[in-house]
């Protein structure tokens, strides 16, 4: 089975688009070559979800993946990253579960307020247009996410910069 898959020509990848729609919103869109019921299944069954949610290129691994996909049900994902000693937990609850078309959950790990993720699945001609919409509690929360997600984090960069300047100052100083 695996050997056969490898010998098949790789189909053209569908493009992934991201956009900061407003001060508080991020949107990701992508089309999948399969019906909505299959794509939806991949988002709602933990044993399938954990196969694709944490690609190896991120340097992260998923330690636990608990998902109780129904309105009011909770989820908890625990990751480990090579660069951090402590595992990181992401958790929240599902607030809308409409089979094959819509999935809404909260992200409650940040103390700054609840972030809400909405995923919609729209089937057309056997393909599914997927839209992931992240709504942050405030502009500040999204700005902070962007700042901390910059290579190594903003403050860390500044610290490195400080060190560099000290070194430069020392070498060219009188």
């Amino acid at each position, binding site marked *: 089975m695996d050997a056969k898959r490898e010998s098949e020509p790789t189909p053209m990848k569908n493009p992934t688009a991201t956009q900061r729609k407003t001060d508080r919103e991020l949107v*990701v869109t992508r089309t*999948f070559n399969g019906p909505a019921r299959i794509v939806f299944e*991949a988002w709602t069954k933990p044993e399938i979800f954990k196969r694709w949610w*944490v*690609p190896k290129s991120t340097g992260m691994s998923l330690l636990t993946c608990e998902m109780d996909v129904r309105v009011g049900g909770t989820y908890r994902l625990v990751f480990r990253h090579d660069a951090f000693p402590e595992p990181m937990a992401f958790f929240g609850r599902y607030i809308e579960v409409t089979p094959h078309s819509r999935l809404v959950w909260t992200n409650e790990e940040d103390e700054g307020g609840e972030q809400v993720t909405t995923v919609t699945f729209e089937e057309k001609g056997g393909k599914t247009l997927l839209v992931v919409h992240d709504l942050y509690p405030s502009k500040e929360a999204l700005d902070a996410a962007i700042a901390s997600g910059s290579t190594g984090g903003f403050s860390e960069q*500044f610290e490195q910069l*400080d060190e560099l300047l000290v070194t430069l100052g020392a070498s060219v100083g009188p």
Partner: protein
Amino acid sequence: MVQYSESGLDASFAALSDATRRAVLEQLGRADASITELAGKFHMTLTGMKKHVGVLEQAGLVMTEKVGRVRTCKLGPRRLQEETAWLERYRQLWEARFDELDTVVEELKRKEKVDGRKKRE
């Protein structure tokens, strides 16, 4: 500051080497502000704050606009580039996930076909 004018990167480094200027950038990330407001917030003279803003502006980290007698400061194009770069990394993460998901979808499609055949038999 003359020695830094040769390259934009040097100007950025120099601008960011000062704690007050970094704090000003963080403040402007939350909301645009006039030089008077910034001076008040950081307990500085207007002249002192003007100098800091001038350094940040030269580095492209801050933009200023004068309306009437008030000069308003906001984050400049270099900061926007940073956001664009972050969005691109964010896109790459999703792309990597979705490439894996493609494989999963193909597998589920095949499985569905096989299961469907079995049912008809």
